[in-house]
């Protein structure tokens, strides 16, 4: 399980979070709120897109503890782009965990791994699980 740390990820974990989607359904028995249909989470310059995103929030304080994105997740910042099957964004602590066939492209080089943990506060990302680097001939990005 090799891991690779990367610097210079710029994200602002305290910026307002905007989530847009086609629909939001709330199951009032459990209080679960799920965004569906081209869900896009925007915070500062960071964008996370997914098929569905569930909002896990604390009823009393109304604070969102985390956003669980599932289905073709893409994580884009001005300098990096990553894809995975699922992601959990823990807003309170500013940690974003991408899991399932993670493919990270950063200035021409592509890295694939099982999971990637991004610490938005420190701006670092750590790839874990079978990290493989895929070099692209100059000029083509991995995606």
């Amino acid at each position, binding site marked *: 399980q090799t891991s690779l740390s990367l610097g210079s990820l710029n994200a602002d974990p305290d910026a307002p*979070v905007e989530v847009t989607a*086609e629909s*939001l359904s709330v199951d009032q028995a459990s*209080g679960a709120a799920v965004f569906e249909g081209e869900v896009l989470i925007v915070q500062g310059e960071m964008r996370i897109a997914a098929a569905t995103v569930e909002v896990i929030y604390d009823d009393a304080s109304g*604070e*969102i503890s985390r956003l669980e994105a599932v289905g073709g997740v893409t994580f884009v910042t001005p300098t990096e782009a990553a894809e995975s099957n699922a992601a959990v964004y823990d*807003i*309170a602590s500013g940690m974003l965990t991408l899991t399932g066939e993670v493919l990270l492209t950063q200035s021409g080089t592509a890295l694939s791994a099982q999971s990637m943990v991004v610490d938005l506060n420190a701006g670092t990302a750590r790839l874990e699980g079978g990290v493989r680097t895929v070099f692209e001939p100059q000029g083509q990005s991995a995606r």
Partner: protein
Amino acid sequence: MHARDNAYSRFVGLAKVLLPLVGLVLLSTLFLIARSPSSVTGIPFAEIEEIAREQRVSAPRFAGSTPSGAAVAVEAARLAPQPDTPERYTVEAPRAEIEMPDGGPRYEMQAPSGEIDATTRRLELQGLVRLVTSDGYEMETAGLTADLGEGRLVATQRLEIRAPFGALEAGRMEADGTEGAGRLLFSDGVRLLYRPGEEGEPR
């Protein structure tokens, strides 16, 4: 005639003059110092005619429950039948409450005006509708249809919503208590704005 010199005749002569004077004084007090007539308001004939002409109920309230067990209650300031369509009524300042079955949320909604269709048991709220749910959702929209028979709500205009986890906008809202404790669906484009770190949802 010696009437002048005996006392009794003099007394009678005097009384003949004094007594009518006293009577006059008493009579005048009746008019001069009597209280002004109490403010007897004129009888509002116009209103009475209006009431007579138009059948209407003031402060109606009715309640019932849906097949799925949701409890429904509606009240209004005034309810009046629409002249052209017999089973449709216009309501003034309607307020409705729907409590979804088996412990589901309670919806309270109100609007400046609305219409009730007795056959389809639908209450259409018009104007600025305000809807509050017992699990922390507050919504404002321009129109809402409450199906009192089924305990289902549909809003087809743009909604501003304050959800427990932030400020929401949506194009359409459906609240349904038929299966289970209730499902709230916002659609036609939903946008959530959440500010981390702020206590509670952004005021």
